[in-house]
């Protein structure tokens, strides 16, 4: 015990010196609304719905983001377009609940839902933070401008059946070839 007495006394007194010294230093605080901070590149904040390189909505309303969401802030309804494309009739994210964990973006098989660095989501009316599809949908591909889900799966939506890369022409059972 005696070995530590001086160390302990020093340990008790040292903070007084540190805090006293800090008292006369310049604070590191960024005065937020007047000064803005440079955010890290991969900052996770407000979610968006991106589009395919060809302009179509990427979201196929597969419900995987809402399943992955730990706070249940995403809800949607899938529907079918005339060409068989599955898309969201409505898509809602409740940003009053969202904790910006980014699990939805990891779950998204079509890279539709992506995060942005826009964190300024405070407001007095909670309903204004309930975003509908029209508020979420953007006009760009986000951070991947090459991926197109419908080109990877042969269900014949953006291209006729069997016309996508990595697909053969549809089988014809009546074909002459054995």
């Amino acid at each position, binding site marked *: 015990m005696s070995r530590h007495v001086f160390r302990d006394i020093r340990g008790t007194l040292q903070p007084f010196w540190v805090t006293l010294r800090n008292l006369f230093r310049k*604070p590191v605080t960024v005065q937020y609304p007047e000064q803005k901070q440079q955010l890290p590149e991969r900052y996770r904040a407000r979610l968006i719905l991106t589009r395919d390189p060809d302009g179509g909505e990427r979201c196929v309303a597969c419900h995987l983001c809402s399943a992955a969401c730990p706070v249940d802030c995403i809800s949607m309804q899938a529907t079918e377009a005339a060409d068989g494309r599955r898309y969201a009739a409505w898509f809602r994210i409740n940003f009053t609940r969202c904790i910006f964990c980014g699990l939805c973006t990891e779950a998204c098989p079509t890279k539709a839902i992506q995060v942005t660095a826009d964190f300024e989501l405070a407001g007095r009316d909670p309903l204004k933070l309930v975003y509908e599809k029209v508020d979420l949908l953007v006009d760009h591909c986000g951070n991947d401008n090459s991926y197109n889900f419908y080109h990877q799966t042969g269900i014949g939506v953006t291209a006729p059946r069997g016309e996508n890369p990595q697909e053969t022409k549809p089988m014809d059972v009546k074909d002459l070839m054995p």
Partner: protein
Amino acid sequence: MADTLFTVVLILAKLALIFGVVLFMAAYLVLAERKILGRMQLRYGPNRVGPFGLMQPLADVIKLLTKEDFLPARADKWLFLVAPGITAVTALLVFAVVPFGPTIEVFGRTIPAAVVDLNVGVLYFLGVSSMAVYGVVLGGWASCSKYSLLGSVRGLSQMVSYELSLGLSLVPVIMMARSFSLHDIVMAQASVPFLLLNPVACFVFLICILAESNRIPFDLPEAENELVGGFHTEYSGMRFGLFFVGEYINLVVLGSLMTVFFLGGWHGPWLPPVVWFLIKVLMVCGLFIWIRACLPRLRYDQLMNLGWKVLLPVSLLNILVTGAVLLGLGL
């Protein structure tokens, strides 16, 4: 008749003055604490309300007043409502005996610069300040919440642990001043403050009032990160505000007592006595804030150990030594 009336008016006036000054000080101590802590942690602290955040206390009061006054479903209603008041009122009551300046002559009367100059002021202080823990205990118990109850139990045993040393640390002061009157104690320090004459008693007293004020490193009854606020977990709005303001009034009061007992009260060169008094009080308060910025919270058993195994023997020994010295000096 006129005499009595005059006394009453005088007391009321002093009460009003002290009320005003103490509450004002408590309010701005909160701000000062937040600013100082902020700067010590390389932050600004509140700076949005008014110039340099000076209107922050007002904003806090408005916020607390307009918040919902929440009563837990199974709380003991009356005790729950009364408890915060006990804390705030007892803290204020102590101030009744604190002399903040020398006696003054008004209309040919000698008026003590305290609400009353009790000849048993020390006992009064010890008695009333012990009452403050009732606020903590009753508030925590009446909330009917686990956290609150744990907080109040801690508060109670904490009081038992340090109250003894607190009283004993004052015995040398009384012995040296030969009076229980705070006025006399200050007068006894006209030349040399007791801090220098008996630093051990002063140190014990400082530790005890830290505990008394429920502040870091002895804020076990609150312990936000273990007990979620402890005894005041269930309080909201102005009732929480009363607990809060009580704590800071306590700070001012204890600072004043520290000044009175050990720092020589209003005595000092050049400046008027009241200013000296204020400066000393604020310095003590500043020390409290500084300590808060520097020390971690003690563990519960450490507090008990300190109270019973260190402070108590030390203060007893100190009494013995002081008595011996006084006897030896033949004073």
